[in-house]
């Protein structure tokens, strides 16, 4: 029953306030009711009225009526504080799972100032902003990114209790915002496409030369490293157990392959994500191979973003 009502309510809302990147709060989109403070205020007025009646005191009547009128006039003021405000989506940069997804908003005033505008999603902490007359106020709200893929925050609550706090005017705004959540990067073995192993051996050696920069082509073995990457030649020279750190590789583009990994899908995506970031940071061209999707070897931010996007959206309905 509640679910049904909720669906009904959402449908009604999206008819009334259709999603858009820029929403102007107008009469049809603002709701207003007394707050709990307002109810207490009304009760206090009732007590004053009782005092006025029992003491037959005209001034007590007058003050009661004055405050009651203030209550009613405050409806207009509370509404006015929200009316005419324009909310615009101002971008939502991508984040990784486990981070806070920032949604940027612009509050624009077309005429008068709007004070103490509170914004937020019901599940998060609300933020309060003042918007100067004919001015702009920026606001960044964040939601925890729990799952990869598109993060759609749902309807944003915009409310204002200004000036008296006895009434609350609010609107549910859908700025049609979405934020891409990449998988959480997890450090782990390099998921190379099968068959590239032998060549890597050579390249690993090469990287050890004087030309190598701030990293080692080989690093000390740690439990969990793939045994396939143990550098046996070094071991036989008595240099201990070393692992080929493919990061040192240059010249040939590594192919990051989903199929080369074991484990569940999310884990594999996380590992791939880690390597996409690592390789991009070193400006090493690489290719990404996902089932049914291949991103040709390249480097640069664009390539990285395309790869991350592919990882984020892997297996999700487009």
């Amino acid at each position, binding site marked *: 029953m509640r679910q049904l009502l909720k669906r009904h309510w959402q449908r009604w809302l999206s008819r009334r306030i259709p999603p858009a990147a820029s929403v102007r709060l107008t009469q049809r989109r603002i709701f207003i009711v007394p707050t709990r403070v307002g109810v*207490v205020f009304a009760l206090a007025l009732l007590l004053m009225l009782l005092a006025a009646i029992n003491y037959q005191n005209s001034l*007590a009547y007058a003050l009661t009526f*004055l405050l009651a*009128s203030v209550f009613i006039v405050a409806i207009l003021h509370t509404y006015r504080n929200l009316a005419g405000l324009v909310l615009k989506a101002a971008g939502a940069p991508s984040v990784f799972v486990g981070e806070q997804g920032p949604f940027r908003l612009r509050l624009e005033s077309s005429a008068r100032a709007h004070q103490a505008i509170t914004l937020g999603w019901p599940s998060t902490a609300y933020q309060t902003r003042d918007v100067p007359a004919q001015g702009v106020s920026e606001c960044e709200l964040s939601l925890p990114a729990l799952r990869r893929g598109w993060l759609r925050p749902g309807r944003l609550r915009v409310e204002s209790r200004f000036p008296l706090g006895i009434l609350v005017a609010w609107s549910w705004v859908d700025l049609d915002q979405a934020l891409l959540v990449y998988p959480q990067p997890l450090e782990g073995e390099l998921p190379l496409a099968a068959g590239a192993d032998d060549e890597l051996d050579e390249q690993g050696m090469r990287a050890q030369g004087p030309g190598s920069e701030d990293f080692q082509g080989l690093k000390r073995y740690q439990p969990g490293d793939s045994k396939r990457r143990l550098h046996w030649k070094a071991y036989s020279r008595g240099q201990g157990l070393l692992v080929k750190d493919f990061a040192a590789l240059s010249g040939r583009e590594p192919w990051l392959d989903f199929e080369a990994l074991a484990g569940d899908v999310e884990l594999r995506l996380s590992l791939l994500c880690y390597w996409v970031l690592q390789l991009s940071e070193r400006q090493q061209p690489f290719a990404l191979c996902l089932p049914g999707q291949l991103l040709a070897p390249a480097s640069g931010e664009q390539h990285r973003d395309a790869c991350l996007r592919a990882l984020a959206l892997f297996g999700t309905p487009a």
Partner: protein
Amino acid sequence: MSGQADIPRISLTWLLVAQLLVIVPHLSHLPLWIVGLWLGCAAWRIQVLRMRAGYPNAWVKAGLLLGTAVGVLLSRGSLIGLDAGVVLLVAAFILKLLEMRTRRDALVVIFLGFFVVVSAYLFDDSLLAALFSLLPVTALLAALIGLQQSGVAAQPWATARLAAGLLLQAVPLMLLLFVFFPRLGPLWSLPLPSERAVSGLAESMAPADIAELSRSGGLAFRASFAGAVPPREQLYWRALTFEHFDGRRWSQSAFARLPQVPAWEKQGEPLHYSIVMQPSSQSWLFALDVAETSLENTRQMSDYRLQRGRPVERTLLYQVTSWPAAVREPAASSDSLRRVLQLPEDGDPRSRAWGAELKRQYPQPGQLVQAVLSHFNREPFGYTLRPPRLGLNSIDDFLFESRNGFCAHYAGAMTFVLRAAGIPARVVAGYQGGEYNPGGDYVQVRQFDAHAWVEYWQAGKGWVSVDPTFQVAPERIELGLEEALVDEQSFLEGSPFSPLRYRQLTWLNQLRLGWDNLNHGWQRLVLGYQGAQQLELLQRWFGRIDARVLALGLVGGGGLLLGLLALWLFKPWQRARDPQQRLFRRFERLLARHAVLRQPGEGARAFAERAALALPAQAQAIHDFAAAFEAQRYAGQEPCSALLRAHLRVLRRALPWR
């Protein structure tokens, strides 16, 4: 939002200001230690605000609470009752301000503040008090607004201006509610403030024991006449009668307390007037003889006074019709006459003898009364507010020895002598005269206008009023107390700064009369606006009055006022205030007349290109306008309506007229 958040600085500032403003009107009737408590707590709270002190801990709070309760108990004698209740309310307001930390606490303080303002009205509901109370109300509202402000950018004065603006905008609606909201009678009885009502009238009088009578200039009542104001010497305002004399003290007879409608006939022209009476804590009203009033719960008693069911604790407005020429009780029962012939068992032998002698001399009661009056007139009697104390036989002492006194002496002595002569008589207490206020066309009667006179009964003529004081000091009746006391200088001795003492200063006197006029209007129109007045006013405006008219007036009037306020607040006619936007609309309308309609969401450029295709002959003009509009709107060019208007004009001329 959360009630736990800190109180914004602005709100706190205004709360401290509000506290001062809320408490000031109470100072006159609060015990002094409350002021000490307030100053201490305010200083402490300010130190907390400046981070120089901490909040009181639980022990300190408990101690303060207990101390306050004990203080109230000591200074008010009880913890219940209105006086103690108000002290407790103010104390709670002070202590809560000290310990408040969160927004919820601040809300409690603000609501308490409103209650303290209301409680001040019970003690003082004058025009000045009402105007002053707008200050604390504004400050409390400012504190309420401050709670909603984030605090960094907000300015205290801007917040107060907003609060004052809200109040101002609420005024029309408040007036509507005030006029139309139905007034009910008290739902249950409540204690009233113990009024220190100064009255020139007491329930009994013992002139022999008064060495000095200093009367206050306090207001007793004001009377507005529907027609011409009768001359001063006819203004004898009856309050009550004294029929019983015990040798020193005149008092009301027990019989006078019984409601018994006396026999009287309406004769002559009636006088219509209304009286706004100050609280007296007594239940008798003031009126000229013989009076009828429409006031509920009020009746005429056997001695023609008007008696209300309960004491007058609030300013009271009532309408009276009086028939000065009425004949009162032409045929009285012997029972009631015996009561007004009562004399003490013994004492005052010389007066009794004089009475008996007069009776022998003048068989006609009328002649006898005249003889007594002319005796007062002829013999060296004097009028003074500093009479000598009188001995055991007070009437004898006054009539034959001291021969100096004020109205109570003369009225008492004359009644005594008349009774000794076998004429039924009694003392009437009330007010005489009053000051005419030409600005407001009403008579104001003050406590020093209190007076006592005599009425005697004569078969066939009924009760007749006479005033022995008039024989001694006619200026007291014709001009007022001040003139009667020119030599003695005892007029308002106790209050050297009373403006009444400086009536010879014309401008001051005019100021005083004007101010009094204002207060009179305030009392009649605002304070007196209760049940009967409301009905009368509404009936005058709307003819018939019932629940439907009231509801219609409230809802209809309220809707209208709110609509006007909304218009004024939102100014919908200024919506397209942006001149470029307005000119673009005109551009749109112009092209619409030539069947080129802008699609929803179509940009200025796209629209112009489409229009140029549709109207190739005017393409240049259309492009010019669109380009200028775009440049000003989006390319940061200086807005220039004149340029746009010029382009529009060119386009209009290029287009065939349609």
